[in-house]
């Protein structure tokens, strides 16, 4: 394999890994503060991508023709709308079930995911069809033999890295982050220290869901196509990535995301079977990792089996 081809595979893997990581971080955040698995997370991503697309359609019909401005606006609208949706889900579906078995939350969010997905399909005009997503980033590329280095991919990767670094900074260096970590560690103690538990949970869900919207827009910009089913698959992969990384750990989720993308690429390129089996391969390795390290690659201080 020549260097150009190798670079292309690495680039493909990095883009995939970034999207998986952003979704996985959401799962990890929710689990951190409430010890719940929120299965509608992937579908929030879908709704975010479609919100962005709808906003774009609105903007173009209003006569806006600056790509950069359009991108900023659709990203802001999608992220804020999904943050609000995330808070609503937390407030009215997840928090009321705090005292119920965790299985109930899992089930109810799984069903909510189906509702969101079907709503997009039924109520978005011709929502069952794949929709073209506008290419808002500069399309220039450098052709290095077998490697097609695209400026938009580089921009998206950088934006993803900045977002994750920003999130780490928020969690580790700010008062809000301290409060989130306190709630994650021990709810009761956090309450007695005067931390507004409900507000922190809502903010955490807003952050996680906003990240999903960001990943959804990135998905649209990368593939230039979205459909109502994107979130289902990304949700499963993001969840698996969060688990192998170690639920509750942001670095773990990021690591898990890139690991999963790497496994898929290896499954396609190096394994001697049809590429249709790449997911079988990737998930089989995930299972093996789970058997080896049941609490994930990066362990929480106080580990808890999921």
């Amino acid at each position, binding site marked *: 394999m020549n260097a150009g081809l190798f670079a292309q595979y690495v680039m493909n893997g990095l883009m995939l890994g970034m999207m998986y990581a952003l979704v996985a971080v959401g799962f990890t955040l929710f689990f951190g503060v409430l010890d719940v698995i929120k299965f509608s997370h992937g579908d929030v991503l879908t709704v975010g991508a479609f919100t962005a697309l709808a906003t774009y359609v609105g903007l173009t019909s209003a006569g806006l023709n600056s790509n950069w401005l359009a991108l900023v606006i659709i990203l802001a609208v999608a992220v804020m709308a999904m943050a609000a949706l995330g808070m609503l889900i937390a407030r009215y579906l997840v928090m009321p079930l705090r005292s119920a078995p965790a299985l109930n939350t899992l089930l109810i969010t799984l069903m909510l995911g189906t509702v969101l997905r079907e709503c997009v399909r039924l109520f978005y005009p011709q929502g069952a069809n794949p*929709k073209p997503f506008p290419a808002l980033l500069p399309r220039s590329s450098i052709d290095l033999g077998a490697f097609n280095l695209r400026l938009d991919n580089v921009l998206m990767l950088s934006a993803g890295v900045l977002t994750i670094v920003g999130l780490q900074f928020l969690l580790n260096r700010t008062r809000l982050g301290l409060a989130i970590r306190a709630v994650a560690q021990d709810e009761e103690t956090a309450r007695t220290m005067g931390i507004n538990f409900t507000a922190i949970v809502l903010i955490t869900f807003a952050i996680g869901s906003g990240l999903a919207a960001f990943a959804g827009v990135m998905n649209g910009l990368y593939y230039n196509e979205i459909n109502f089913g994107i979130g289902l698959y990304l949700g499963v992969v993001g969840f698996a990535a969060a688990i192998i990384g170690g639920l509750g750990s942001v670095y773990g989720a990021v690591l898990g995301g890139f690991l999963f993308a790497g496994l898929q690429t290896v499954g396609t390129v190096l394994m001697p079977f049809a590429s249709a089996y790449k997911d079988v391969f990737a998930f089989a390795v995930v299972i093996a990792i789970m058997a080896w390290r049941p609490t994930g690659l990066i362990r929480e201080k106080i580990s808890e089996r999921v």
Partner: protein
Amino acid sequence: MMKSGKLAGAVIATLVITLAAAVAEAKDKVKVGYIGPLTGGVSVNGIGGRNSAELAVKLRNADAKTKYDYEMIVLDDECKPNVAVQVATKMAADKEIIAGATHYCSAAAIAAVDTYHKFGFPVIVWGAVLPDITYRNKYAEIHRVNGTMINQNDANAELIHKLGFKTIAVIHDTTDYGKGHNEYFAKAIERGGKAKIVGTFGVTADQQDFTAELTQIKALNPEVIYFGGLTPIGVRIRSQMDKLGLNAVFDGTSGIVSDAFIQGLGPLAEGTLAFREGAPTNKLPGGKFFMENYNAQKYDNPPEAYGAFAYAAMDMLIDTIEKVGPDRKKVIAELANVKDRDSIVGKITFDDHGQNMVPVITKFVIQDGKFVEWDESEYAAGKRKLPGQK
């Protein structure tokens, strides 16, 4: 006198109305079935087919000469084999449903044929193209108005040879549908002997990311990428080809002949090849009649590529029931004799496997956002060139 005359008139009028109503009600209700993918990625085709079949029922019910009052039962196979078996069982087990127009997806249809056979339930397949659906077994219950994928892949390989392309990479989904396309296309290319398949890639039917496969294909540097699969992943593969700077002819099958493919890709769809059995709807003998009536119903969705076939299938079922009565066995016996029967998709003749012998294959190329017949396109005329065409 006047008064009683008026009264008598009123009484007579009432009697006539009641009688008319009674006659209308005296028409027996007969149930017919429709199965297609109403949800999921290819639901536009299923909904287009449903509307078309429903149109056939509506037009017939509006006809005063009709012997029965038809009601269409609609079930959703979701384009999934397991669901198809469930809904096929549900429909076939209901003795009130006499016959059905069923399936767009080959993977769904091939899974359901045994069920229809077991229950003795006559069906006419309206959109699925896998040859095995009619040819694997010799079930008297199974018929098909559209052609099979063998013919379209022959036509496809012939065009590729004619255009002088030498190297082809194949991507197909790993359902029975995609595997069938791969098999028959590879055979046809081999027979032609001039072009070579440099790589074959099986992918899952709901895969999102194809960059790894396409990067491998890029290394193989083929002139043509053949795609055996349906619209949703066809859109993804074509748009990701562009992302990787892969400049090859995108050569599709009947699975991408759908307005959704062009909508999903916009200008990128230009120059895509596709093939389908039968003539295009507007060139069908009854195409104009069909489109006028379809448009009059103001459905949200277009009939899509196979709508006319769904109409023809349902129309033929109703014809048969009109002739022999609502009895499954008689319907099956009658359908065995279909020969040179006029329909909106042209003459229909079933062979001993219930397969319509349609020799016509239409070659399409996407030009300016439309599926244009190849022979009428600017590509065939030499005004435009496909990527890499000499």
